[in-house]
Every structure is written in structure tokens, then in C-alpha cells.
């Protein structure tokens, strides 16, 4: 076997230049088309998790600010957006898509600075997909009558949207694009640790002359999101984040007529059969759990390997892990960047150690030394675990893979479904009939067959069971933003 370790160490650093990135020292709230100071004057600091250095001060929106943002969105809905011909709304959304493409490198760099993800991913995945989501949805704006046979689609009004820190700009696009295309206006609350690309998006909205108030962006923490959810003049709530918060949002919305979509946690089963193309499967496993440091709700975090190939597959996987480059997110060679925050690092460590305490065996590659500053975690495998272990049951949201074996198709299905989650799943086999049996039987919203972690604006995404309610993306992603008459 080729020693991939030597190969890895021969890479020279190739950092992405940051000279042309324009970041202000402080950012205000984006309300009614203008950047406004928060009424409380309170701010938060956003840092680079790879260096722990401060990037910018960001406004903290309290209840009064959220009220102002919702009012701005309501006024824009009533006076501007709902009166605009559908095709004109579509043209604004096309403009947004084009402007993101034009500035894609700047967005990519800021995404990597603020969130810690490798530039290769922000450049090749996050930002192009964000633009694609706007482009895809733009075209729906004047074609909704064809999307819902027998019914007329009316806008809902003001959408309050709360997004996570793992794909900041991409999640903003997932939320804003369909909302606008269906004729709604928006108040968006970015995640506390990754507000910068959303604020750059606000600058972009100004530049393309999006009418004031159509999209408002309020930065803050959980209390800001909570104020947005419970605001009486919000017609629809869209949330992506943890299952615990999703449930509490659902409780808050009880008794109201607000519509909601929840895109929550996951613990996806990734099933490898003996007849799979093993080298490709190993790439799929690595992409499934180490993509974006494992900060992915649909990550393939439970690996199920058919017994006969377990040793061979594990050897290949460990060998592949030796060639993963961990380090500077801005280096174009980097495979695995920084953990998004100290909080998240603590959580990953706590859960991983629980795996050890419960008798699991931990394997971490030592191919790369971790930088001294910043938040980092080695790609990790945990074997010798069973279904009841915390690392098998709970979402870790980090680069940690729990590995078990199985013998029969039925056993694989049963183990895969033995979870309250149901967001995604993966299966590798060369037998087509077996493959579709598995994808049919697993109770999850997205199934990847002989591939993993693929995303597209035309492809609906969302969970079964406790992984959420509703779909985002594709035609099905329009439903949450319309009332069918």
C-alpha cells in the first residue's frame, strides 16, 4: 500500500489571499434597507475559530429591534412586495443570485474566516450552492400556478427565519430564496458565531436595490430568535438547528395559526455491504462524516459495515484518514478546518469521551499535528460500541464516526431505523434491488445510494420523525411558503 502519510507531508502551504476582502470593524442590524444601531447599544464579538482572533463587533438585537424588523417586513410586504408583479419579484431574486456569483470569492473567504470551514468547501460548495438556490427559486416566482395543481398559491406574509452556524450563507439562501419567490418578506436571524456572510448579504441587497424591508437581518443570540418566533405579526417560522430547540419552538407556536418548518438534528446510518465498491465507499464515508468537520445535520455518523468486510474496510478507512489535512481553513489543501466554537468543541469532546467511558475504542489519526491556537478536533472513529451507546444515539455534530457491524439486510434496516431521528441515510452496494430495498425501508427524508452528502437546490431536503417537519428545496420546498386556496 502506498504510504499516503509521506504524500501528505509534501504539500506546501497554499493559503487563499484575504487582501480583497472588505470587513468592517462593526456591523449593525439590517432593518428597512439600512444598517441601524441596536436600540440597547449591545454588541457581540465574532471571532475566527481557527485563531481565536476577533473579526468584528456585531449588533445584538433585543425585543425592540426584532419588533422594528418585523414591522419593516410587514410594511414591505403590504406596500411593496405583494404589489409587485410576480415576474418582477423573480428578477430581483435573479439579481441576488448573480451578485453572489460575482462576489463568490469574498463570501467564501469570510465564510471560512468566521466559521472555520476549509476554503475548498466554502468556495466549491457553500457559495456556489447559495447562488444556485436563489437562481432556482427566482424562476418559480411567476410560475407558482403550475406548482400546485387545482389550487391557487397565496403568500403567507412575514417569514421569521432562524439559521445555524454550519452553513451560514447557504442556510440563508435556503430560507430566503423560496420565501421571496412565493411572495413573502423576511426577517432572518443568523447564528451567533457566524453572522458575517449574512451581513455581507445585506450589503449585497442594498447594492442590487432590493426594496427596503423585503429582507431584514437581525443578529443576536437565542433570545433574539425566541423574540422572532413569538412575535404576533410573524406568519411563518422556519428554523434550522437542534431538535431540542425545534421542539420548544413548536410548543411556543401551539395555539397560533403560524406555519412552521423545522429542520433539526440527525444521526444518519451509513450502510456498507460486502458487495460495495470499497474504495468508493471509503470516500463516501470520509465525505459523510468529515465534510465540514462533521458539523452537518445529515452527516453519516453511524457506520454499519457488513461483517465479512469489516477488517478490510476499517484498514482502508484508517489509511485514508492518514492523508486528511487538518489545519488552516484558508489553505486550499486543507480537508478539515476548525471546530466552529469553543462550545461545540466541548460538546464533541464530552460525547467522544463518553464513548470511551462506555467501553468504545477510539481511533484518531496522527497524520497532522493540530494548531496550538483555535478549536480543533482530530477525525475520530469509535468501534466496539452498541446501539444503546450515547455516541450511537446522540448527535455529536463533529468529526466522530461510530462504527458497528451487521450480517443481514434486515438487521441493517432495523439498526438504521432504531433512532428517533430520520433526516438522511446512505447505502453502498452493487446490487440495485438491494439498494432500493434499503432506500425504501429506511425512515429518512434523504437517501444517498452509492454517494453521500450531495445537495442541490432542485432536490428537496428535510426529515422524518424528530429530524424535523417540512421540506426545503425543490418544488416541495415551496409548500411551506404558500397558502393553498
Amino acid at each position, binding site marked *: 500500500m502506498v504510504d499516503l502519510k509521506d504524500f501528505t507531508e509534501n504539500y506546501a502551504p497554499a493559503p487563499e489571499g484575504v487582501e480583497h476582502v472588505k470587513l468592517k470593524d462593526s456591523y449593525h442590524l439590517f432593518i428597512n434597507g439600512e444598517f441601524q444601531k441596536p436600540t440597547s447599544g449591545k454588541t457581540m464579538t465574532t471571532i475566527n475559530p481557527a485563531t481565536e482572533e476577533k473579526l468584528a463587533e456585531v449588533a445584538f438585537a433585543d425585543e425592540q429591534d426584532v419588533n422594528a424588523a418585523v414591522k419593516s417586513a410587514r410594511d414591505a410586504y403590504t406596500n411593496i412586495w405583494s404589489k409587485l408583479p410576480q415576474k418582477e419579484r423573480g428578477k430581483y431574486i435573479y439579481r441576488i443570485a448573480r451578485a453572489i456569483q460575482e462576489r463568490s470569492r469574498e463570501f467564501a473567504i469570510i465564510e471560512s474566516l468566521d466559521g472555520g470551514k476549509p476554503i475548498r468547501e466554502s468556495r466549491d460548495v457553500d457559495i456556489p450552492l447559495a447562488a*444556485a438556490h436563489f437562481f432556482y427559486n427566482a424562476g418559480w416566482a411567476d410560475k407558482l400556478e403550475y406548482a400546485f*395543481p*387545482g*389550487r391557487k398559491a397565496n403568500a403567507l406574509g412575514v417569514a421569521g427565519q432562524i439559521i445555524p452556524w454550519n452553513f451560514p450563507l447557504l442556510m440563508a439562501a435556503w430560507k430566503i430564496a423560496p420565501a421571496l419567490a412565493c411572495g413573502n418578506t423576511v426577517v432572518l436571524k443568523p447564528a451567533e458565531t457566524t453572522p458575517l456572510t449574512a451581513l455581507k448579504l445585506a450589503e449585497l441587497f442594498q447594492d442590487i436595490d432590493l426594496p427596503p424591508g423585503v429582507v431584514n437581518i437581525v443578529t443576536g443570540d437565542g433570545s433574539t430568535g425566541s423574540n422572532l418566533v413569538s412575535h404576533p405579526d410573524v406568519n411563518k417560522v422556519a428554523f434550522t438547528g437542534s*431538535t431540542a430547540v*425545534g*421542539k*420548544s419552538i*413548536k*410548543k411556543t*407556536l*401551539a*395555539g397560533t395559526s403560524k406555519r412552521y418548518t*423545522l429542520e*433539526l438534528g440527525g444521526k444518519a446510518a451509513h450502510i456498507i455491504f460486502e458487495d460495495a465498491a470499497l474504495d468508493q465507499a471509503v470516500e463516501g464515508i470520509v465525505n459523510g462524516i468529515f465534510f465540514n468537520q462533521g458539523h452537518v445535520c445529515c452527516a453519516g455518523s453511524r457506520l454499519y459495515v457488513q461483517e465479512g468486510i469489516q477488517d478490510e474496510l476499517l484498514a482502508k478507512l484508517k489509511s485514508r484518514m492518514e492523508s486528511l489535512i487538518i489545519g488552516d481553513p484558508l489553505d486550499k489543501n486543507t480537508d478539515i478546518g476548525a471546530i466552529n466554537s469553543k462550545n461545540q468543541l466541548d460538546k464533541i469532546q464530552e460525547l467522544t469521551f463518553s464513548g470511551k467511558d462506555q467501553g468504545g475504542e477510539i481511533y484518531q489519526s496522527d497524520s497532522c499535528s493540530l494548531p496550538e491556537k483555535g478549536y480543533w478536533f482530530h477525525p475520530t472513529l469509535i468501534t466496539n460500541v452498541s446501539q444503546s451507546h450515547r455516541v450511537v444515539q446522540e448527535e455529536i455534530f463533529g468529526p466522530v464516526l461510530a462504527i458497528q457491524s451487521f450480517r443481514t439486510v434486515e438487521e441493517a434496516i432495523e439498526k438504521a431505523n432504531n433512532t*428517533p431521528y430520520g433526516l438522511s441515510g446512505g447505502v453502498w452496494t452493487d446490487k440495485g434491488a438491494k*439498494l432500493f430495498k434499503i*432506500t425504501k425501508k429506511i*425512515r*429518512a*427524508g*434523504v*437517501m*444517498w*445510494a*452509492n*454517494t453521500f452528502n*450531495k445537495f*442541490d437546490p*432542485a*432536490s*428537496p*431536503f*428535510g426529515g*422524518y*420523525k*424528530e429530524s*424535523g*417537519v417540512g*421540506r426545503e428545496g*425543490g*418544488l*416541495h420546498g415551496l409548500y411551506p411558503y404558500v397558502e*393553498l386556496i
Partner: protein
Amino acid sequence: MNNRLNIAKTYKLYIDGKFVRSESGRFEALQINEDSVVVNICRASRKDFRNAVSSSRKAVDGWWARTAYNRSQILYRIAETMDGRKEQFLEELQCCGMKTKAAEKEFETAVDRFVYYAGWADKFQQLFSTVNPVSSSHFNFSLPENQGVIAIMAPISSPLTGLVSLIAPAICAGNTVVCLTSGNASLAGITLAEALHASDVPAGVVNLLTGIESELAPHFASHLDVNGIVYGGSDSHISKQIEVDAAENLKRVKIFLNGDWSDEAIHSPYDILQHCEIKTTWHPIGT
């Protein structure tokens, strides 16, 4: 004068394809006409509900595994069987306090609704599935699947049409259901079980309980092996608490407060869709 005594029917719960009394032994006395005739209706307990959920859970994979054509025929068969028992249903609707004309309309709309959804059982998948033009070399498609076990609290105001309008789209989508029919609606509601029993509906696909809405609502909403809940009643406090309790395992919740069940516009294939999950599958296209 006729000396022959009438044979009164014993009304029971319908769980797992069997007519059973409440395990609790409790009953409710319904006064059903001006002559003060009293009928004892089973007052289902939490335990009865849990038994019904177990039955529905057991039945769901088999029901979902049937062909859409077969589900369609079974739904149509329910309509046939109901129609053959028209006199009995009309009598019970009138016992519940409906006038003759209203009872006829209630019955006929209910039967027609099963026919309507029978027709959708093998078509809604085509309407709501998509092949998605992704920008990579993958065959990507989205299909509706069933959700699992749906708990239904049927309206009292529309004993038959309301009940059927809630059951039919749920089982059409391949789910199994546990339904509560309560108060004056119980007589006609639980009699639907007799039509279901004679209609090739597999045991557990529809479980029917009679009982008290306010007593059972918390159990319906908080059971962790229930995937969805539909409330068709008229109490906004109950419906709000259902939403809160249902959040614990993120049941899909649908509330119809004071729905007008006779309205044709109330039913559409979108009612089936709300009992579905959309699954998207990716598969590489290569050599």
C-alpha cells in the same frame, strides 16, 4: 300488539380487527331519543388507546407494502359495504339527533368521500412526486411515503362525514389510524367499524374507540409511538394542548377547529399529502 322484544346492539370498541369492551369496564350512558332509551357506550381508557396504537403499529408495514391498486380497491369496498348498511346508519344518525334529510346527506357524503379517496390511492403519488434536475450526474427523485400511525379525534358535529373525511386520506396515504368518536357521534361512528370489518380492511389499519375527548386527548397527543395527530373537534384549549404535547416527539399535527365537513372543497389530494413524508433518493449515473 307485537310482543317481541327488540334485540339491542351492544356497542364495543374496535381494536385490532376485533370488537372488544373497554379494558376499564367503564361506560357512558347515551340518551338517544325522546323515549329516554339509553345506550351504553364504552368509555375507552388510556390502556385501550395504547392497545390500539400497538395494533396500528403492527399493521402499518403490511398496509404500506400493499399495492396502491389494492389499497384503492379496499377503500372502494368500504364505500360499497357502507352503502349496503344505509338503513342502519341513518337510524343511528337520527338517534344522534339528526333530522332525516340531514342524516341522509351526512351518510351519502361520507360514502362518496371513501369513493373519492379510493380513486386517489393509486394516483396521488404521481401528482406529488418529482424527478429533480440536479446539477450533477445523479438520478434524483422525490416520492411521498406514509408517516406511520396517525391518531385522530373526530368531530362530534359530523358523526360520519367528519370521521370519514379524517380517516380516508390518512389510510389512503398508507398510514394506519386510531380514531376517537365521542359524544352523540359515537353511535354512527362506532358502527363504521362494522362496515370496515366487512370490507377487507386488514386488522389494525383502522382502530375505532369511543370515549371522552378531553380525557383521551393528552394520551393521543403524547404517545411516543404515534407519528401524527389530527384534531377535528371544537375545543381550542384541547387543540392547543395537543400541539404542545405533540411537540415531544414532533408528531405531525393538523387542527381542524369547527370544520365544515359537508363542504366539498374541504377535501383534496393535499389532505393525503399532509399525511405523507417526502423522501428524496440520490443515485449516481455512471458507467
